[in-house]
């Protein structure tokens, strides 16, 4: 694998299941050592893409290379270089966390001593050292998923596939898994992550591909995708709804755009081009007009807003 070749390189991948095209010309290039998010609603083709890249499913057309190797012609070599963490915790319930990791280590052809050492290392790294010898049955959802991540990391794979790693977890479990993924990335692995959660992609991914109906409809850094949703916004919450018309007039003058006004929450928002100038100008004008402000903030559009914008454009 040359230094410039992407760790994951997909070109026009196609896969049909009966009448539905799960993937319909899917393209992707992930540079080594980065985290790439595949974002999309259920049925967008995320899992099919991961299954093909992890050599579990054969594509109908197109080409896919992982760690410089063809996933169909060189499937066996690909398997030696990847880790897969699927949507379920693929661990044996009755066994302890350590036994599970040892088992996967042995199946990666580590000798007994090395497998045991590696299991202890990983338990430690994923914050499971204290519970490593207890059966998985008693683990929380977050602990199971962390054990699952550890199992995917036995041989320090070059490319790690994470298929919806936090689906079904509570907020605490999600935070735990996010921490673990950051640990992996710090170790230099290339990660391809699928998720339906925009904040997850925002938190973890260097770049994001938005998938819809089996093809990429937008690609870029989280920041780039957010700019698709428009410029920054100035948000205001007033003490009194009676001041809304006057405040809206000020906002319109300062921003040069028509603000959205929501009387129920006494909130108004307006897109701004020059962030700081708009903010100081607005504060000064509101103060002069004697309008009492409960909250004022500049914010980037959320990835949710970007996602809605992108899918709306495609549907239009």
């Amino acid at each position: 694998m040359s230094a410039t070749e992407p760790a994951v390189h997909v070109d026009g991948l196609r896969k049909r299941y009966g009448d539905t095209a799960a993937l319909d010309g899917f393209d992707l290039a992930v540079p080594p050592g980065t985290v790439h998010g595949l974002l999309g609603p259920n049925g967008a083709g995320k899992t099919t893409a991961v299954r093909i890249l992890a050599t579990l499913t054969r594509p109908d057309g197109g080409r896919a290379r992982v760690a410089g190797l063809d996933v169909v012609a060189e499937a066996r070599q690909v398997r030696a270089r990847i880790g897969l963490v699927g949507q379920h915790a693929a661990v044996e319930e009755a066994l302890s966390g350590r036994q599970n990791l040892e088992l996967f280590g042995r199946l990666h052809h580590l000798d007994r001593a090395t497998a045991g050492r590696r299991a202890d290392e990983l338990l430690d790294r994923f914050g499971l050292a204290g519970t490593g010898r207890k059966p998985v049955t008693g683990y929380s959802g977050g602990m199971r998923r962390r054990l699952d991540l550890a199992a995917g990391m036995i041989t320090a794979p070059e490319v790690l596939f994470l298929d919806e790693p936090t689906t079904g977890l509570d907020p605490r479990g999600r935070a735990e898994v996010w921490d673990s993924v950051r640990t992996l990335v710090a170790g230099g692995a290339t990660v391809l992550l699928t998720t339906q959660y925009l904040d997850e992609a925002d938190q973890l991914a260097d770049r994001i591909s938005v998938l819809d109906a089996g093809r990429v409809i937008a690609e870029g850094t989280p920041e780039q995708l957010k700019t698709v949703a428009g410029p920054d916004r100035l948000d205001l919450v007033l003490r009194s709804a009676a001041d809304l018309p006057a405040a809206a007039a000020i906002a319109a003058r300062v921003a040069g755009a028509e603000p959205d006004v929501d009387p129920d929450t006494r909130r108004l928002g307006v897109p701004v081009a020059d962030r700081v100038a708009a903010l100081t100008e607005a504060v000064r004008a509101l103060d002069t007009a004697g309008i009492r402000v409960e909250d004022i903030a500049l914010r980037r559009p959320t990835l949710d807003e970007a996602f809605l914008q992108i899918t709306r454009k495609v549907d239009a």
Partner: protein
Amino acid sequence: MMVWALTDSWTIARRDFARWARQPGPVLAALLFPVLVVLMFGYLFGGAIEVPGGGDYREYLMPGMFATAMLFGIETTMVAVSTDAARGVTDRFRSMPMAPSAVVAGRSLSDMVHSVFGLAVLLGCGLLIGWRAHGGLGATVLAVGLLLLLRFALLWVGIWLGLVVRGPESVVAVQILVWPVAFLANTFVPPETMPAGLGAIAEWNPLSATVAATRELFGNPGAGGDSWAATHALGLAIVWPVLILAVFVPLAVRRYRAA
């Protein structure tokens, strides 16, 4: 490569052994259930069943029960295989650089160990209630071999079923369906006593071939009969499992690769 395939199979099998050690409940239940059936038939129904050619019903019952226990093994295999598939364990194995045959081979190894234990328990139970192997050592060993051959063949049916069904819940359907297969045979009741059409099916049931052959080899009553199937029981007890293997091994392997 070959060495790794064997080592990997052993590792996969050891995973089951470790689970049995941690959670012995389900394994013990699977071992003891056939004993319960023996007691039900031997002492509750048996008095009303007449053995063709005379003889003790419990001696007649045991070979039928041995083969039925081999049939029940399908459920064990199927639950294990479909649980692994549903939990993503199978996918993880398939994404690893191990021999593809090792997962199924490991499965068959642990299930065969399970069956050997099951058969040992049942043989002991038979001895306790008065069943005896009257044949020589060679005949007895051959009979046990035929039973395990049947289990090995059915194991592949179980692997295939486990990969085809949607999840371990589907095992309920199989749990129900094994009973007609077990009953529509010479296991508990002589086929001569059944309506003609059903009796013929029972004669040709692969289970019946193994039962008739083991009755003959153990020297238990009720062996033999006039039909072609009954007179060629020993041959059929080998041919049937081989046929089942010829059909279901490729099916299961293909299904595993494409899962």
